[in-house]
């Protein structure tokens, strides 16, 4: 039942995504300045925003784990962080492609790009350190602490194009300040929805795997402790 709901959610997300891709490629004209490539924004930005949402959930569940010591919070945390880190990778890759097209280089070291890359690396190191801790309570506790510490980078990325006087090549904010043409609002919203649905399906899937893995582990331990 739970599994079916998960797949349904994923399928729904894929549908929205496909129909939105259709809208974007067929329904929208090329951008006056950037031409065809601007369409990447409908993946590039939602990928990061959805990822940040999952990181925020992970922050909350990390705090909850420390307070309540319930392993379900740890499972949610790790599921969210895995999926969000993947979405950050999507943001980095699409941004990189966009950058290659617009700036002529794949990468440049400014505050926005660097902090975003650091977000990726930070949460990667969360995923790297986790398996090295054997005892599950300890693993969950230390992971929660790392997730809390790591979250500090999320607002930093956000501020990196919003503070005055930072050296960055990245476009300044266009969302929520009317700088984006109104026709783009709908496909942008659909892009958000699609990634949100797909992301949630993946999180639920990982959550399911994580809990059943813990059950298997404990059965095996009982067997071996006999």
């Amino acid at each position, binding site marked *: 039942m739970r599994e079916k709901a998960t797949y349904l959610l994923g399928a729904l997300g894929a549908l929205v995504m496909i129909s939105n891709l259709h809208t974007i490629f067929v329904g929208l004209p090329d951008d006056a300045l950037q031409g065809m490539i601007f369409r990447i924004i409908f993946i590039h930005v939602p990928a990061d925003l959805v990822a940040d949402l999952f990181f925020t959930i992970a922050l909350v569940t990390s705090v909850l784990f420390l307070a309540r*010591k319930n*392993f379900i919070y740890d499972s949610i945390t790790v599921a969210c962080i895995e999926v969000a880190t993947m979405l950050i990778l999507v943001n980095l890759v699409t941004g990189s492609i966009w950058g290659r097209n617009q700036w002529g280089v794949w990468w440049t070291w400014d505050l926005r790009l660097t902090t975003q890359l650091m977000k990726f690396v930070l949460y990667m190191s969360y995923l790297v350190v986790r398996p090295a801790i054997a*005892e*599950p*309570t300890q693993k969950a506790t230390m992971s929660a602490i790392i997730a809390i510490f790591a979250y500090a980078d999320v607002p930093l990325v956000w501020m990196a194009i919003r503070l005055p006087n930072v050296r960055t090549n990245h476009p300044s904010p266009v969302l929520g300040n009317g700088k984006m043409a109104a026709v783009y609002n709908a496909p942008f919203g659909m892009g958000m929805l699609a990634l949100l649905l797909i992301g949630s399906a993946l999180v639920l899937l990982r959550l399911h795997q994580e809990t059943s893995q*813990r*059950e298997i*582990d*404990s059965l095996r*331990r*009982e067997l071996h*402790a006999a």
Partner: protein
Amino acid sequence: MLAVAAERVWKYFGDYPALRGANLEVEAGSCMALLGRNGAGKTTLLRIFAGLSNPTKGEVRIAGTVGYLGHGIGVYDDLSAFENLTLFGQLQGVADPAKAADEALERVGLTRVKDGMAREFSRGMRQRLAVARAFLHLPDILLLDEPFTSLDDKAIAVLQSLLEAALAGGSTIIMSTHQIREAMELATHVAMLERGLVVHTGPQNPEMLADPAWLYRTYGEKQ
């Protein structure tokens, strides 16, 4: 009066319950030998009493100050015996750490080498220093995890006499051990753990002294 009480204490390591609702009550002034097979949960319970680990469920009450001596001796190799003891005195909030350190060294007979580095001590001397450290603040409750392991007959005798003195001074002792014979020379009570449960508690009796396996045979799981 109870010195230590555990009420339905559970401790999970992941999904594995090392303690499954253990109950234990230790009278003030008694010496409790905590027995049980490998993996029964002795160390886990002692660490919870010492505040080194939080129980997952259940309640633990400790009436008084605690001294802990685990597998490691818990002193710094690069400090002298005296420096080690004054440091722990400060941590414990002892009023006059230097004086307490001197007295503790006197008690275990290390006054002569008080300025020697711990790393240069022989096994027996290190053990004495560890005991001095655990006894420094004259704790009400002493928690010892397998204190006799790897000690020779002489070192065991020294440790036993130190523990006897502490008992005589009114301390409560809880010690886990597999060396039942050595433990029984001190123990007033025994508790037996099995798979995370306390399956027997009671005063020491002559059978236990004569035949260490008696306890396991009588209260242990049928194999």
